């Protein structure tokens, strides 16, 4: 497979659970940079803590910086500001980027610094055992919301839109072609680009919410087809109100 050259051979097998969306997202990212013929030696992949942070580190045969929980964007900011010739990509989870790292996320978007931030959004804390995340839908059962989550979730695309990001898209790991297209656009965008990628976690989310996620990891991925709705207009981001559905598309 031609993408093998971007992977450190010694790191397989991947640590991801069977059916985890992160493997698909990993392939989509590598496909995007291959199709763009980017020089991976001039790229730096920065991640925080959690399952999603392991997508680049240590898989990618590139300069990788695996940082602290919530902090990858701050580190990436230092790298990009000091050496603008490097293409700096942050890949991390929703808990990492939007909870503990929320401040860095909004300020990097506000500065419109040329970073690509790819959020592997599984609506849960996977690695720490399935606790509620700022993106967990209301009512979902997690390790810390046994009665169902009661707080409204963040829509990360709206969040970074408000903060000043200049390329914003959302897709799912089911819609790989579309996802690759968005990642390619983000990687060539001059300014702060953000991709919210719906990437299911059966192990921690699905098995606790089988009433909505089905009874297998494969079902959870296939279900993305039914629950996602493609936006016809970018500004649908602010009018879309279909309950239990996910709006995908390019919003900015």
């Amino acid at each position, binding site marked *: 497979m031609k993408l093998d050259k971007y992977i450190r051979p010694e790191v397989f097998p991947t640590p991801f659970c069977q059916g985890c969306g992160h493997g698909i997202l990993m392939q989509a990212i590598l496909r995007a940079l291959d199709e763009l013929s980017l020089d991976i030696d001039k790229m730096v992949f920065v991640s925080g803590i959690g399952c999603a942070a392991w997508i680049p580190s240590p898989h990618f045969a590139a300069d*990788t910086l*695996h940082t602290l929980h919530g902090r990858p964007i701050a580190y990436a900011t230092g790298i990009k500001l*000091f050496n603008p010739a490097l293409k700096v990509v942050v890949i991390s989870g929703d808990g990492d980027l939007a909870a503990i790292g929320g401040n860095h996320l909004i300020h990097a978007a506000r500065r419109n610094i040329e970073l690509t931030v790819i959020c592997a959004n599984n609506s849960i804390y996977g690695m720490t055992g399935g606790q509620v995340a700022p993106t967990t839908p209301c009512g979902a059962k997690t390790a810390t919301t046994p009665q169902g989550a009661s707080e409204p979730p963040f829509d990360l695309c709206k969040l970074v839109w408000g903060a000043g990001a200049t390329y914003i898209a959302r897709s799912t790991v089911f819609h790989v072609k579309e996802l690759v297209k968005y990642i390619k656009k983000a990687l060539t965008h001059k300014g702060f680009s953000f991709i919210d990628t719906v990437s299911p976690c059966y192990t921690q989310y699905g098995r606790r919410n089988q009433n909505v996620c089905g009874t297998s990891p494969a079902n959870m991925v296939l279900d993305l087809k039914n629950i996602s709705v493609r936006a016809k207009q970018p500004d649908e981001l602010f009018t879309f109100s279909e309950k239990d559905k996910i709006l995908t598309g390019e919003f900015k």
Partner: protein
Amino acid sequence: MPQFLQGNEACALGAIKAGCRFYAGYPITPSSEIMEQMARELPKVGGVFVQMEDEIGSMGAVIGATWAGAKAMTATSGPGLTLMLENIGYAIMTETPCVIVDVQRAGPSTGQATKPASGDVMQVRWGASGDYEIIALSPWSATEMYEMTIQAFNLAETYRVPVFLLADEAVGHIRESAVISPDIPVVNRVDHTDLPTFGNSKDNSVTPMPMFGQGRKLSVTGSTHDEWGYRKTQSPEAQATSVARFCNKIKQNTDKIISYESYHIEDAETIVIAYGFTARSALKAVQTARADGHKVGLIRLKTIWPFPEGIFRELPKTVKKIVVPEMNQGQIVREIQRFTALPVEQYNKTNGTVITASEIADKLNEIR
């Protein structure tokens, strides 16, 4: 040629001289003049300045810039340092050379923003999680704010460790005639070839700091890793050898790192041990006591960490007593007690004012 400078300004000039080309910070009294001076000076030498959203982001950006090839620095005060410590732990684990200036103010918490203290002596030593050795320098003048900033960068480069310049408000805000010597040597980063990213654990050697963007495919992580940066979080051996190396690379070089000054100790019966601004008052008190015919001497710690325990082996036999004045409740005094059997008296002040020469003189009289 001496210049009339504020301590904080001298620090920024020292950083530029040391080759610092990246500064990320967040405003906090009494350190902000360092940041403001860096904002003015860095663009003149092609460097990068950024005011981040908080201290956490500042320290993260400093580490990121360092891996991109910069000599980088931040400055803060006690509560800001507390926020930085998680990232400083990361710098320790990933052997990222950088300089953190802590201009201490009276605490805990926000305390007295414009008043001096030496309350962070233990915070810089033990604030991050886990086991490690750290380097902290303690300037007593505007001249030393300049010189020790350069020295801090040199030590950071040599040992690939974050180095603290542990100043206090009185030294940061003092305005005085400062000597900006053009002759202080600077340790520059050298390119390394095929050496592992993280030094050899067999001989505790420090490999030169590599950088991103050279096709080296560096793997850097704050998790326990091997010498090539691969996670080894399940390996007792990798964890043990890493921690030993972080400690040993400093411990085995204390002779090269530590510096202190002695005044009038040849025949002294009482020795004052002091650091930072307090040492200025102590020197004055010692000189006055000497003029009055009392056998008193001073040892001034320029390096706080690693702790210069060797000074006790070199004390003259005449010494019967040690006095330790500190702008805290006694953080270094216990360190001193660990290494000497001599009686140790402490003089502590934590009211946000400096310890004066006459206060130390009174203490000397009291114990005589």
